[in-house]
């Protein structure tokens, strides 16, 4: 199978996908409800899409193509409301968060579809342990080469997105010490990591064909990269975020990425090189482990700051682009988040410290999601 054709899209349009947790309302552990939820929401009209995911405990919602922050907020709220109404009928809770705090992966049931059963066969326990929940943001690109430029220029900001969205400090009932422990599960997959450093679409096609010939992959879906091109949509897809605990946070992060994309595509501020990736995994680890307090090494200058400081600086640089996209409110939310230093992971730890119960913490996650 060869790579799909790249269908150009309007630059800086965007779409958001969120993988949501389905929990019971007794002890707030993950539950089986995806099929029932799918049946109930089938009757409702709403923007975007609601799709089942790998396990019965997960559901994915997405927006249509958005132009502005306000589009995303309106659409996400509407889909959220439809889902919350349906889940209440079923006595099921819906919440964000990159991992479920205390689920046991061996208990998960695979959603009944051939692809999911195939993946489950292939990856074994990894597939079940991969019960993690992410936010994906698609950014529209006018042509395939711009998409590759954007992908590699955006890579240096990956730690920003991780630290801003981090909401998975707890895994299997213990505090991992990480802000985003979810990504540790993703790294276990053989085809995770980053895209190869190629800037011409023909070269990317050659790479893809070679990979297909090895028999390792069949389609773009088999790559679990942090950012990957989605030629069929004419977008690049940023995949490192944990699902935030609220719709508003998800929309704000999406529009921060959108504003950055406009800055990168219009100003082309960097001459890209393979060496940009020397600090990539270090920066990414710092973001996962320490969140906004993590260290950030600039790939070009080698200058060291904290991630929080680097985001604050970046916000100033992209300000005009945010204004052009009507994304000021989103960027203001990001600025406040950085100033307070309190991402969702910090919030979760505070709630847990106060309630002394992970069950109660997940209940409060559900409240935040529905609010």
């Amino acid at each position, binding site marked *: 199978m060869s790579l799909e054709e790249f269908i150009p899209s309007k630059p800086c349009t965007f779409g958001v996908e969120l993988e949501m947790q389905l929990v*019971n309302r007794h002890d707030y552990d993950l539950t*089986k409800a995806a099929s029932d939820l799918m049946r109930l929401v089938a009757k409702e009209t709403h923007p975007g899409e609601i799709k089942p995911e790998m396990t019965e405990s997960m559901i994915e919602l997405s927006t249509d193509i958005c132009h502005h922050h306000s589009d995303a907020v309106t659409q996400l709220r509407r889909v959220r409301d439809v889902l919350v109404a*349906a889940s209440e*009928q079923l*006595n099921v809770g819906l919440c964000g968060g990159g991992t479920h705090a205390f689920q046991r992966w061996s*208990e998960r049931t695979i959603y009944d579809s051939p692809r999911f059963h195939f993946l489950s066969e292939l990856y074994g326990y990894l597939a079940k342990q991969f019960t993690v929940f992410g936010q994906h943001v698609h950014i529209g690109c006018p042509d395939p080469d711009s998409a590759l430029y954007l992908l590699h220029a955006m890579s240096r900001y990956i730690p920003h997105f991780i630290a801003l969205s981090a909401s998975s400090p707890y895994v299997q009932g213990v505090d991992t010490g990480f802000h985003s422990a979810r990504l540790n599960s993703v790294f276990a997959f053989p085809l995770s990591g980053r895209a190869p450093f190629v800037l011409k679409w023909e070269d990317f096609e050659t790479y893809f064909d070679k990979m297909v010939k090895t028999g390792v992959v069949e389609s773009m879906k088999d790559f679990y990269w942090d950012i990957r091109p989605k030629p069929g949509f004419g977008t690049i897809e940023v995949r490192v975020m944990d699902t935030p605990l609220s719709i508003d946070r998800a929309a704000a992060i999406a529009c921060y990425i959108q504003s950055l994309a406009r800055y990168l595509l219009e100003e082309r501020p960097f001459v890209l090189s393979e060496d940009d990736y020397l600090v990539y995994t270090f920066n990414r680890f710092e973001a996962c482990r320490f969140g906004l307090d993590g260290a950030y090494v600039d790939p070009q200058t080698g200058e060291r700051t904290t991630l929080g400081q680097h985001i604050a600086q970046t916000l100033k640089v992209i300000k005009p682009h945010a204004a052009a996209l009507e994304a000021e409110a989103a960027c203001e939310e990001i600025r406040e988040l950085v100033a307070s230093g309190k991402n969702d992971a910090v919030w979760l730890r505070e709630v847990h410290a106060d309630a002394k*119960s992970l*069950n109660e913490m997940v*209940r409060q996650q559900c409240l935040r999601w529905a609010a």
Partner: protein
Amino acid sequence: MTSELSLFPGWPPAPDPVFFAGLALVFAGLAGEICFRKLRLPRITGYAVVGLVGGTLGLSSMLDAQTSAAIRLLIDLALGLLLFELGSRLNLKWMRSNPWIIVTSALEALLTFVAVYVVLRVFNVSPLTAVLIASISMATSPAVVIQLKNELRAEGQVTERLLALAALNSVYAVVAVKLVYGWMHQAYHSSFWVVLFHPLYLLVGSIVLAFVLAKACNLVFRKFGSQDHHGFVVLIGLIMLMVALVHMLKLPNSLTLLLAGIIFRNVEERPQLWPAYFGTAGWLLAVVLFVLTSLAFQWEYVVIGGLAALAIIVVRSLAKVVGTVAVAHQAGISYKQAVALGFSLCPMASLAFVLVADTYDIYPQFDPMLKAVVMCAIAVLQLVGPLVVYWALALVGERKD
């Protein structure tokens, strides 16, 4: 001075109740494991078989009055714990956001009541007895349901609704039976006061006591937190005290504990999770409960009420299926799930037994038809009911083990 011979056992040595209890547990445990591992049946079917065999061998008639009273207390305690757990899983907020659950519940219970009553009248059972049996028939065995949910680690909409409907129809059944007592008092006493105030005393008394217990449990829970196994000791103690108080005040044990569970769960927003720690101790009590319930069965009941019992088993199941299927769509489940749910509601066990026993405690001379029909139905459904639930949950893919 005691004779030196008294230091040695007489012949034959006389076994005490502990001997029989140990024997029953050994057999029940073995039967349960054989069912589960070899025959792929639920364990509780095995416990019920051991009880039935014991009953057939005449074990229950060998018990003296004191032991019988102790057994009744044990049943009340075991059933009380399970009812409390079931109650603590009922989420009233869910009923508010999906009122069709209540409609389903009311419909299946009402249909069951009417169908069973009509059939019993066809069998020429007296109206009072028929009403009593019809009331008892509304209840789905809370013990079987909660025990199977734990044993199978079942999860999903059918399981969720099964727990809710079982909790609700158990409340209806107990309340209905207590109201029928008013009618019975009319037949046996003439005092207006007794007729009116006895049912009222039972209902109000249960609610008040349930509220006190629930608040006490909430308090202990808050002080100890959900992760503390030592707090659990206090909580179990509270439940035991409550069962004792219920006995002292002659209140309905089942209703009080069920309501206490419901209040415990619903007055606090925080998840109130302690019944998960029932673990081994709870399991032991549940085994005892299933064995003892079947033990009370006597074959002479089959002669008097066997046929009527079979008839009510059939119409009762049908009524429950019709009730759940009729509003399946509005309630938000598929027809397949509704059928599975309806059939899963068929178990009948210790709660029905206790309600029958209560009646004869008040009026020992009451129509023997009541005992005969209900005990036959229990004997059959203790064996078949768990199987039906087992299959129904498998059909909708909600069974893990």
